[in-house]
């Protein structure tokens, strides 16, 4: 089954239709998504700023990470659930939405950044915990994380706009390619 037909099948399920047409359900899920973003990204941003020595310089990095990351993980779990529900409500539209695709790609990159950081320089965190200038790899991880997550937030916000939707032709062929639209037909 192709992703396209999977999304079409998902859109035809009663749960998807119910959420899509709900007066309260969809806005509530979206509000939860924004609210848990504050928890999740709030923690991540503070950790990233610490990695860049821009805040809490007297607090060891291991402590910032150890104390804040459990909250970030909890927030992330709710974000994934509410995010999946938001997708579930509009699977076909989201699938062909250029910003949604950009968001997914950047989420994967952000995940990679986490993996590189935790499997690399963070393993010896106790050795550089309170250094006035942190190892370059740690600083890069913090900066990359900030840029990626900021872009993810912006891309997420833009999903709501339909500038590049398949049914708004003509579009540049690059846009149609990236959004997986057939430029010749209106979907």
């Amino acid at each position, binding site marked *: 089954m192709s992703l396209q037909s999977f999304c079409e099948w998902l859109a035809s399920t009663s749960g998807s239709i119910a959420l899509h047409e709900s007066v309260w359900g969809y806005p509530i899920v979206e509000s939860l998504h924004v609210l848990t973003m504050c928890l999740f990204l709030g923690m991540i941003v503070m950790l990233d700023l610490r990695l860049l020595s821009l*805040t809490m310089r007297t607090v060891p990095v291991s402590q910032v990470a150890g104390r804040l990351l459990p909250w970030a993980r909890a927030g992330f779990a709710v974000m994934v659930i509410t995010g999946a529900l938001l997708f579930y409500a509009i699977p076909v539209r989201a699938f062909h939405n250029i910003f949604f695709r950009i968001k997914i790609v950047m989420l994967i990159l952000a995940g990679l950044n986490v993996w590189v950081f935790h499997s690399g320089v963070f393993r010896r965190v106790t050795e550089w915990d309170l250094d006035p200038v942190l190892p370059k790899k740690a600083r890069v991880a913090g900066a990359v994380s900030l840029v990626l997550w900021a872009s993810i937030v912006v891309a997420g916000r833009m999903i709501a706009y339909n500038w590049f939707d398949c049914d708004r032709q003509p579009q540049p062929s690059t846009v149609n390619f990236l959004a997986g639209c057939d430029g010749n037909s209106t979907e």
Partner: protein
Amino acid sequence: MSLLPFFTWCEKSAVGEAIRNSQWLFPVIESVHLLALVLIAGAVLVVDMRLFGLGLRRQPVAELARDAQPWMIGGLTVMVTTGILLFLAEAIKCYYSPAFAVKMTSLLLALVFTFTVRRKVTLAGEGRVGPLWRRLVAVVSVLLWSGVGIGGRWIGFS
């Protein structure tokens, strides 16, 4: 006195007009507004969690609050600036939006609370304010800021 003439004047302002007439400006400003929200959330939550006895528990509250302060103020500045721009673009809609009223009320309360009670409690030395009061301050702060966030999100649904 009705505030409608003022809201109408805002809506008709050149800046409001320019933002409304552009396809990109509103979404871009909205995105920056959202990013500033994340920054404020981080700077506020780190301190509120600590006040509640969670998170960075080994750090003195006053020190954390001082560290987080510039980021909170920075976030607030961006937030208010972009917020005013967004408001100018749809002032009349805001006038009739209950969500906007909720948001502005929460914001006013949150700001007053943050720079009076919360500031006093966070900067007070350890042990000068009982743990119950500190927890209460943390809960009130989180609830007020959540009201701002949820109210803001719901302006878009009306």
